Every structure is written in C-alpha cells, then in structure tokens.
C-alpha cells in the first residue's frame, strides 16, 4: 500500500505576544478581565464587541500604555528576548513603541503632529531609529505618501490641511514607514465615510500581506473584522466570550451573545 505523499505544511508560527490572565477594571465588569491568548507572527487578531465592552482598554494594556491590575503580557522581541511588558521600565516600553511597534489611533489627531509637515510626520519615526540623512528621509516620505495614495506633492503641507481620510492614511504611512513587527489599531476606519473606508481597508489589507505585519485590531464593525482579521476575540462586559477563526465565529457562532451580535447586522 502506498502512503500519502502529501507533505505536512508548517502550521506553527513563532509567538509574538503572550497574554496571561490580564485584567484592568475601572468598576465591576468595566474594562477587561481574565484575558488569555497568544498572538503569532503574521497574524491579524480582531477584537470585536459592543461599545463599552472593553476593547480599547485591552488594546491599551497590550500596547504598554496602561498597566493591568493583574496578569501579565509577555512580548517576544526582535532579538529573541522575552519581555514582561510591565516588569520592564517605562523608558523601555516607550522604546518598544518607537522601534518595534506601531500604534494607529481611531482619531488621526492622536497619532499625528498636526502642525508639522506630512513629510516630517513620516520622517519622525525613521529619525527615532537613527536615520538622519535629509534626502533619504524625504524620499521615504514621498515613497510612503505614494503607497497610501496621497499626492507626494503635498509633502510640505501640514496634516491639518488634509481631509479626515487623508489624515488617516498619513497616520498609517507614519506608523508603517519603520516596518514595525507589531501594529495595534483602534477602529482605524471609524469616523470615515464608506467609500474612504473601503479604500483604506484595501490598503491595510495589502500592506499587512506585503510587510508580513502582525496586527491587533479593535473594531466594532464585523465587516471590517471579516475583511482584515484571521482570528477574532469577541468581548462582552469586559470578558472574552468566544474566540476562534474569523469566518467560523461569524458564520457558526456558538455563544448567545455572538449570535446576537452577528444577527444584528445585515451581512458581516
């Protein structure tokens, strides 16, 4: 008898983040609690759930911006160290955000410096990595403006002269220019009109694939979650009630709350 000739694909990827029993509560069931998961390299993990369920709180804890009351977050860094995020110094955490991570805020005003030029916004994170060559910084600025479909001719304009959708694309360029290993996004397409949203989503999808990014994405929009994420966590009242493969969670939800969430939208 022949045996199967099908080679086994490599199904494992290195871990990037390990989240152990993390809780951060502002009041009973307000915030996040007892959160456990592992994020692998190259994965896009979506966090969905109703308003106030604790998505942004969890994201802030993961991104080193808010210490948990309990539990810990382990980050496996580029040089193979495992860092306990809240055991290292504040300065070290900030350095991670600057050097290895990226953070995309829902409101581009929180992620951009509105008064300085678009080019300077993009160049700033490169300079933090040690690049000083003016011509190269400018070239990178123009290149990235092109990648997010902004007119490179506007490199000297300040973001406050841009529309909301343009500002959001600039924020993405500014964040991704350093090719971060891990990107945190909080409602990256919230507050934009539908056609601008579609364009931005397509852009994020392409960049994630081309740069092999690992992403933690917070969104209340299940269609956005379906389009971008490989896996989902469903949160309700500070807890994860269901976790799994994105299309399994959306098409065959097991938990009563997830079923309600999925059935309340037209076509997630």
């Amino acid at each position, binding site marked *: 008898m022949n045996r*199967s000739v*099908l080679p086994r694909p490599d199904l494992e990827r290195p871990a990037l983040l390990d989240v152990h029993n993390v809780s951060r509560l502002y009041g009973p069931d307000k915030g996040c609690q007892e959160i456990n998961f*592992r994020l*692998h390299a190259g994965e896009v993990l979506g966090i969905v759930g109703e308003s106030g369920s604790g998505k942004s709180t969890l994201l802030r804890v993961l991104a080193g911006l808010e210490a948990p009351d309990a539990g810990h977050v382990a980050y496996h860094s580029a040089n193979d160290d495992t860092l306990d995020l809240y055991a290292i110094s504040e300065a070290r955490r900030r350095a991670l955000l600057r050097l290895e991570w990226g953070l995309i805020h829902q409101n581009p005003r929180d992620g951009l410096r509105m008064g300085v030029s678009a080019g300077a916004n993009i160049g700033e994170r490169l300079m933090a990595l040690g690049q000083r060559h003016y011509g190269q910084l400018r070239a990178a600025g123009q290149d990235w403006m092109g990648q997010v479909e902004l007119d490179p001719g506007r490199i000297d304009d300040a973001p406050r002269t841009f529309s909301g959708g343009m500002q959001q694309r600039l924020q993405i360029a500014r964040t991704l220019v350093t090719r971060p290993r891990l990107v945190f996004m909080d409602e990256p397409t919230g507050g934009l009109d539908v056609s601008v949203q579609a364009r931005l989503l397509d852009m994020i999808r392409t960049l994630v694939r081309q740069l092999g990014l690992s992403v933690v994405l917070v969104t209340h929009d299940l269609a956005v979650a379906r389009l971008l994420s490989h896996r989902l966590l469903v949160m309700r009242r500070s807890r994860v009630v269901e976790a799994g*493969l994105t299309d399994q969670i959306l098409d065959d939800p097991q938990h009563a709350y997830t079923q309600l969430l999925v059935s309340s939208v037209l076509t997630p």
Partner: protein
Amino acid sequence: MNALLTVENLHKGFVLHGQGGTALEVMHDLSLELRAGECLVLAGRSGIGKSTLLKMLYGNYLARRGSIRLHFSDGPLELTDLPAHAWHPLRRDVIGYVSQFLRVVPRVSAVEVVMEPLLARGADAWDARTKAETLLSRLNLPERLWQLPPGTFSGGEQQRVNIARGFIGEHPLLLLDEPTASLDAANRAEVVALIHEAKARGTAMLGIFHDEDVRSQVADRLLPLDDHLMAKTTHFPGQPS
C-alpha cells in the same frame, strides 16, 4: 493509494440561542473517505447538509462530534480540534474552497481577487497575474472586466472569478459548492475540464453539483445524504495499489 481525507462519525447541529435555544440537528454519524485524484459528489435534497459538510471540512463550521483527518506523508492531522491559528496556513497550502457565491471585497479587481491565493504564498506577482489571466480567459470572462472590482458583475461573472480563484492555488484538497450553478453550457464544460485536469494532478475533490450532466462527467462516486440524517457512503472496492 490510501485516503487523503477520512471523516468518521461526524455530527453537526446548531443551537439557536435567539430562538429559545432551539437545537437543529443537521448531520448524524457521517463517515467518508476521499483519495488523491478522486472526485466525490454529495447529493441530496436542499437543506440536507451538503454545504454544511464542506464548511466543516474547511473549518468554517465547528463539528460537534466525530473526526476529520487529513493524511500527510508523516501521519494524520485531526482537524476538529485544530487551533484557530493553524487554519490559516492549512487553507493557504492544503485545502481550497470554491464557495457558492463570491465574497466581494471592495476596490479589489477581479484579476487581483484571483491572484490572491498565490500572493499569500509569496508567489511572484507577475507569475500570479499571468496565471490569473490565463484562468479568466479560459473561463471567458471578458478582458474589459479583469481590472474592475467584481461588485457590479453579474452572478455568472462573479462565479467565474470565484472558480478561477479556487483553482489557481492547485490545493491538494478542493471543496466545490455548486461551482456550475449559474453558468452557461460553454463555461460549464470549461469547469468540467478544470476538474479533470485537477484530478490528473492528484487533487482530491469533494463537490456539490446540481446539474446531472456535469455530475456524471466529474463524479467518481456519489455520497447521498438521506433524510434520516444518516449519510451512507458507498465503500471502496478495495483496489490494490
């Protein structure tokens, strides 16, 4: 040849929490085997659970009980308890799926929709484009549509994009959910040809085809799902290899 896929005593039900916890039993004790280079066709009335079975094999639906195993050269892999992060590489490299309807992604052109499974494996973009265009032209999709997002395409045009996307990756296991449903005779014949070519390179296929004519041209065996929720498969005539 041994089986590439074995399904044993598979059960599936849905609990509808929104409707007082109504339990819907869809599949009871289904078993099947599928070998490389073989096309097994699922049959049975509408609502019997054909699509549900394909979705369970693709990780899209959870199995309640039973086993789904893929057989690799170094041994079997159980899919019913595969962790979520492993499905992504498994779908990229091993299990392909042509859903009944294309899920349209805004702004992504037809040719890019078709290229995507190759790009996900890190293939060269030019190669991927060439292969995608070859498939789209075989399926007679007018060239003026290639660069447009399929959102505004007709049902049959969208389905041909979907078929091209499903076949381009040449996955060892391919699940086909009524790929010929809204196609005309010429395009149906093209899909039949694609299936025959896939068989020849050893692809194992599990498909649903309403069209009797297509079915008779592609099916090596039939798996009728009957009304007692009991799927009974015809057994292999134990061919020596």
